[in-house]
């Protein structure tokens, strides 16, 4: 069942190759249906997932290349079940918004399907090779989409930058994964088999402290870890809305999932050794990129920098190596995916309606746009961590988890989240939504039909749902996080378990 979540988009993408080019609408409709089915499957997997059972559920395993120990091994555990849900929802909303693409619709649909199928496949994989393979499958369409359907004068430069950065990041990751494979001496790429082998006999500490930083830089580049983030804001600004939604929301989370699936459980000593460096770097994300976001004069660039800044919280959660912190990081991954998709979906709509995203040229839109204006406001509130949205839950859990080891960074992070985030988000809201309505926009119209409102409504509703009932997420995530942190022998992991109980979370709200 899990396989169909990502196989349906890929199969439909291949089928669309044979469609005549002028049937663009048919291609769009096929994409829409495929994403819808995939989303329904992901939702049902999410709710059928039994949090009380440890280990992988809906498991599928078949041998692919015996000689190398590569298996096609998929399934869900607590960590990826929420990510799959988020990815499928974002993919569905992106397919709704791709209706606005009116040139070469067929090719766009194929690329969007490949992107969604690829990244959902990477989320579901429990084999390092397929994990990497599916991610690459999703990454290449991103470059093409930005290059062909992108916007702005900077388009070519941005495309080139994002291509080079992410390809090199992916290659470094590949290098690290191969080293890990070689050093583990287990002759398998299957993550489950690897962790079983390494649980008995770890890689010697020298190897761990070599491989971990390689993977940290590799995965870090893919997630825009400071200082490897400079591709992200211009890239998202140039990308067409569905591509930006998919990449910023979903594909970027691959790197974080790589930390949780591979780096931390398989290289525990390296993780302990390097977690301090990681914590320092994520302050760069939270404070520096937040500060840069304050200076932006363009809505897309603002969202781009803010999304880089948000990644800092997820990294801080992972660096804490505590159950609460890592659980928080997973919640942030899900919440930020929804939020980034909402933000870039909205900015795409504004771009189309007004022809500009410069703050100087916008203003007073709330009067004319009750629905879209409110949606933008909600996205901004969620972005500055307002309670009631899932982002707040994640950030709070991360701060709790990281307090013990990194209390100073937590203070900085809280400052970055609450003060800086509030400053840039609210000042942007003031410039765009309030003030005088410019005469050239006097004829601007709100989203008219139900269908136009659907994608935004779904994203907002999911954000609110998980913000109000975070326990639905945390009770699934927590048992799996405990398993991956088992190797990281920190005595306080046991002691810190308590605040995760559902009642406590509700109190903190």
């Amino acid at each position, binding site marked *: 069942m899990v396989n169909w979540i990502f196989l349906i988009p890929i199969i439909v993408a291949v089928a669309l190759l044979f469609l005549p080019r002028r049937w663009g609408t048919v291609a769009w409709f096929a994409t829409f249906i495929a994403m819808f089915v995939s989303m329904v499957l992901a939702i049902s997997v999410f709710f059928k997932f039994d949090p009380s059972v440890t280990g992988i559920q809906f498991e599928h395993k078949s041998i692919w290349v015996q000689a190398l120990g590569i298996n096609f091994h998929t399934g869900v555990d607590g960590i990826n079940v929420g990510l799959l849900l988020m990815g499928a929802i974002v993919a569905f909303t992106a397919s709704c918004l791709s209706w606005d693409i009116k040139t070469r619709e067929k090719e766009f649909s194929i690329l969007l399907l490949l992107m969604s199928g690829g990244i959902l496949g990477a989320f579901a994989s429990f084999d390092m090779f397929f994990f990497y393979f599916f991610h*690459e499958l999703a990454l290449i369409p991103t470059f093409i989409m930005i290059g062909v359907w992108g916007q702005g004068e900077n388009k070519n430069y941005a495309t080139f930058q994002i291509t080079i950065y992410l390809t090199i990041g992916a290659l470094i990751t590949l*290098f690290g994964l191969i*080293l890990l*494979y070689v050093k583990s001496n287990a002759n398998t790429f299957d993550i489950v088999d690897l962790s079983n082998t390494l649980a008995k006999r770890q890689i010697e500490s020298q190897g761990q402290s070599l491989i971990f930083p390689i993977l940290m830089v590799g995965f870090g580049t893919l997630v825009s870890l400071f200082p490897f983030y400079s591709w992200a804001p211009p890239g998202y600004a140039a990308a067409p809305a569905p591509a930006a939604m998919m990449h910023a929301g979903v594909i970027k989370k691959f790197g974080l999932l790589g930390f949780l699936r591979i780096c931390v459980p398989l290289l525990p000593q390296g993780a302990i050794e390097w977690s301090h460096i990681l914590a320092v770097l994520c302050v760069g994300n939270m404070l520096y990129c937040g500060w840069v976001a304050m200076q932006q004069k363009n809505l897309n660039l603002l969202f781009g920098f803010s999304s880089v800044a948000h990644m800092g919280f997820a990294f801080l959660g992972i660096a804490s190596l505590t159950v609460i912190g890592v659980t928080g990081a997973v919640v942030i991954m899900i919440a930020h995916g929804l939020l980034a998709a909402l933000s870039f979906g909205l900015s795409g709509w504004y771009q189309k309606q007004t022809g500009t995203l410069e703050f100087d040229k916008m203003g007073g839109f709330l009067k004319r746009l009750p629905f879209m204006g409110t949606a933008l406001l909600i996205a901004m509130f969620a972005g500055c961590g307002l309670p009631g949205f899932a982002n707040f839950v994640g950030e709070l859990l991360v701060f709790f988890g990281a307090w013990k080891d990194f209390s100073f960074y937590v203070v900085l992070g809280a400052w970055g989240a609450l003060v800086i985030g509030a400053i840039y988000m609210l000042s942007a809201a003031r410039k765009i939504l309030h003030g005088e309505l410019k005469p050239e926009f006097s004829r601007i119209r709100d989203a008219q039909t139900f269908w136009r409102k659907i994608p935004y409504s779904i994203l907002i509703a999911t954000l609110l749902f998980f913000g109000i009932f975070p326990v639905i997420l945390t009770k699934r995530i927590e048992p799996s996080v405990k398993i991956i942190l088992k190797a990281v022998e920190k005595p306080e992991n046991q002691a810190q378990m308590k605040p995760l109980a559902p009642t406590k979370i509700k109190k903190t709200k």
Partner: protein
Amino acid sequence: MNTGVLILEICAVLLGLIILILEVSAPSYLKGGLGIITLVGLALILLFSYTFTPGFIQFAFGGAYVMDGLALFSKKFFIATAILVVLLLIHTERQNGFIPGEYYALIVFALTGMMFAASANHLVMLFVSIELVTVSFYILTGFRKQNRESLEAAIKYLIFGAVSSAFLIFGIALVYGTSGTMAFNGIAKSLGGSTLHSAIFHTGLGMILVGLGFKIAMFPFQLWVPDVYQGAPSPTTAFLATGSKAAGFVLIIRLFLNTAEPAIALWREQLIVIAILTILYGNLCAIPQRNIKRLIGYSSIAHAGYLLMGIATIATDGIASILYYLVVYMLAVVAMFGVIAVLFKGEDYDIGKFSGLHQRSPFLAMIMTCALASLAGIPPLAGFFGKFLLIKSAALQVDLTSSYYYLVAIAIVGVAISIYYYFKIIKLIYWGEPTDQTKLSISYPLVVLLVLCMAGMLCYGIIPSELVDAAKLAAKSIAM
């Protein structure tokens, strides 16, 4: 003597002779069909090669010729390459007019040389087979007699080829002088004694490596590559870049990694350095190229570097990776030359011509993009899996010497550089504006060629297990 073993080579020689005879004696309506006759003949030989079982080792010529898994795998590879090249030739003939039958015959003779090289188990056999390949290529390179560049390329190739043959002969003499035999089995036996540390023996081996290094475009013997690739007719270049290179690698594998393995194991560090330099030289020089054939030339040097990485591992794993990589590299290069044959009609090979190809022919644009992406090593194309295997086989050896870390790191850097210059072309294809709007005509043989290459690149990328197993089996057949 066991002639049954030689059946593939005998068939190939007969095919070449039949073409030559038809060329002079056949009625004129048959002459236009020589390409098809060659194609059918080669396809039959390829089918015939499946009657051999890879596990079974046979000898001929008193042990000078061996038919084992490695030889069989390589022969199938060479025949398949020749078939694709002949398809390309037929297209060129339909597009640019009549091609004399000698061209087809020479391709078949070069193929025969490669097939003998795959089975060479004796230094004389090695020399004769590699000369048969090279001499055929002297003529193939200079085939456009009216074209100054083609002649220039032929002269350059002749001079460099002659020098490399001299090295080869000198090396063979030294090895013979120290080990007392030219048979590979005898050399292997003599390495048990004092020959292993004899300086003259190592000099001889080094000279043979230089001689073969010319063929595979190993640094620092790669100087001829860009000029010859640029001047030679496209089908020749395609065959030179794939078949001739592969023949060199198969010989290196058999002589160095099998026969003289104990001696070569002392050269680990040197081989790593050579591989590193070859990767860097090829990739760095490819960056500023504007001529597509020169660019392919430099990138083929870089690919020789990746393949040398497999040699430098001195392990069965490395050999299997080399064999896999040769196949996927061949598919991508031949596909690229297929596109080039349509797009460039004898004028300068400036990459500006790719500009806006997507608008002129989405099919060619897709093939070219896939071929470039496969060479750059991007999944799900086969090139990715090939690089993956090579890097993995080198990484497996890190316990022996830490130099392998540098080798793997440089290989990754090389891949990153290559992405830059390959994507430059992809960018032109999709985002450039077309410079001319003339219709591109693609003949049926070329469609078959491109679809075959494309299918190969995709299938071996997504379901690599079959080819990996075949390569492993071939690598296992030579005992290390």
